[in-house]
C-alpha cells in the first residue's frame, strides 16, 4: 500500500501562487474576450435597432446603455480594489496587491467614460453639460482618487511597500463609494434617483432593461478580461524586475 504524502494545495493557496494563477487563468482570456465581443454586438443591436425611444427623453435614452454600465463599473472596480486592499493588509495575499494595481487604471477609465457620457446625456436632457450636484461631484472625486492611486503606485520603487500605502489610501477612499450611491437620496440633485437597482425593483419597462442588462454584462465581462490580462502583465513585470536585478548583480560581480 502506498501513501501519497504530497500536501494538497487548497484552491486559495493555488490562487496565491503567481505561476499557478497564470496557468489557471491564462486559458480563460480568449473565451472571455469572445463572449464579451458577442455581448457587445448583441447589446449594440438592441440599443440601436430593437429598443424604443423613451416617452420623455426620446432617443437620448440610448446613451443610458453606455452610461449606466460605465458608472456601475466605476464603483464596482473601486469596491474590488477595496477588497484587494483588505487582502493585502489583513491576509497578506500575494496577488491582492497585483489585483489592486491592475484595476486602478481600468477603474479610472470607466469613471472618465461615465462622466463623459453623463455630460453628453445631461446637455439635451437638463440643458447643461455639468452641474456641481452630489452625484456628479462625488464621481469626479472618485476619478481623482483613482488618479491619486495610480500616481502612488508609480511613486515607489519597492512595490511591496507601495502596496501597504496604496491599500490604506484605497480603504480611506472607499468612503466615497456609498456617498456616490446614496447622493441622489441624501441631497437634492439634478441627477435622477436610482431606477434600476432599487429595493422595489426597476422602474423601467423590459424593452429598455433588456439592452441595458446586455450592455451591463458586456462591460462587466470586458473589465474581468482586461483585469486578468493586466494582472498577468503585472506578475510578469515583477518577474522581469527580479531577473533584471539578478542580471545586474551578475554583471557587477
Amino acid at each position: 500500500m502506498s501513501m501519497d504524502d504530497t500536501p494538497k494545495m487548497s484552491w486559495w493557496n493555488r490562487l496565491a501562487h503567481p505561476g499557478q494563477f497564470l496557468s489557471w487563468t491564462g486559458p480563460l482570456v480568449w473565451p472571455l474576450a469572445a463572449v464579451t465581443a458577442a455581448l457587445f454586438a448583441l447589446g449594440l443591436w438592441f440599443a440601436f435597432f430593437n429598443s424604443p425611444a423613451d416617452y420623455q427623453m426620446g432617443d437620448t435614452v440610448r446613451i443610458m446603455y453606455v452610461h449606466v454600465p460605465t458608472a456601475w463599473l466605476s464603483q464596482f472596480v473601486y469596491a474590488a480594489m477595496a477588497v484587494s486592499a483588505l487582502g493585502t493588509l489583513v491576509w497578506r495575499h500575494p496577488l491582492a496587491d497585483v489585483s489592486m494595481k491592475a484595476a486602478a487604471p481600468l477603474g479610472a477609465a470607466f469613471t472618465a467614460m461615465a462622466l463623459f457620457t453623463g455630460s453628453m446625456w445631461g446637455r439635451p436632457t437638463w440643458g447643461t453639460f455639468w452641474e456641481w450636484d452630489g452625484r456628479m461631484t462625488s464621481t469626479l472625486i472618485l476619478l481623482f482618487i483613482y488618479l491619486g492611486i495610480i500616481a502612488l503606485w508609480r511613486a515607489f520603487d519597492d512595490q511591496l511597500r507601495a502596496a501597504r500605502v496604496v491599500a490604506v489610501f484605497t480603504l480611506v477612499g472607499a468612503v466615497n463609494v456609498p456617498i456616490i450611491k446614496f447622493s441622489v437620496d441624501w441631497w437634492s440633485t439634478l441627477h435622477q434617483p436610482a431606477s434600476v437597482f432599487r429595493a422595489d425593483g426597476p422602474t423601467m419597462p423590459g424593452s429598455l432593461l433588456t439592452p441595458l442588462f446586455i450592455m451591463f454584462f458586456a462591460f462587466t465581462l470586458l473589465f474581468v478580461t482586461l483585469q486578468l490580462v493586466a494582472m498577468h502583465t503585472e506578475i510578469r513585470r515583477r518577474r522581469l524586475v527580479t531577473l533584471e536585478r539578478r542580471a545586474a548583480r551578475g554583471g557587477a560581480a
Partner: protein
Amino acid sequence: MIALGEHAEFIIAAYAGVFIGLGVLIGWTVIANRRVRARLAALGDTRG
C-alpha cells in the same frame, strides 16, 4: 440605422467617446502585456 432624432450628435458623441476609450484601454493593456513578455523572452525566461 435608425434615425436618432434631434439630439443625434450627443448620442453619437457618447458612443464614439466610449468606444474610442475602450479601444485605447484594450490596446494599452494588450501592448503592455506583449512588451513585458518580449522582454522576459529576451532575458531567457521560458515560463511563459
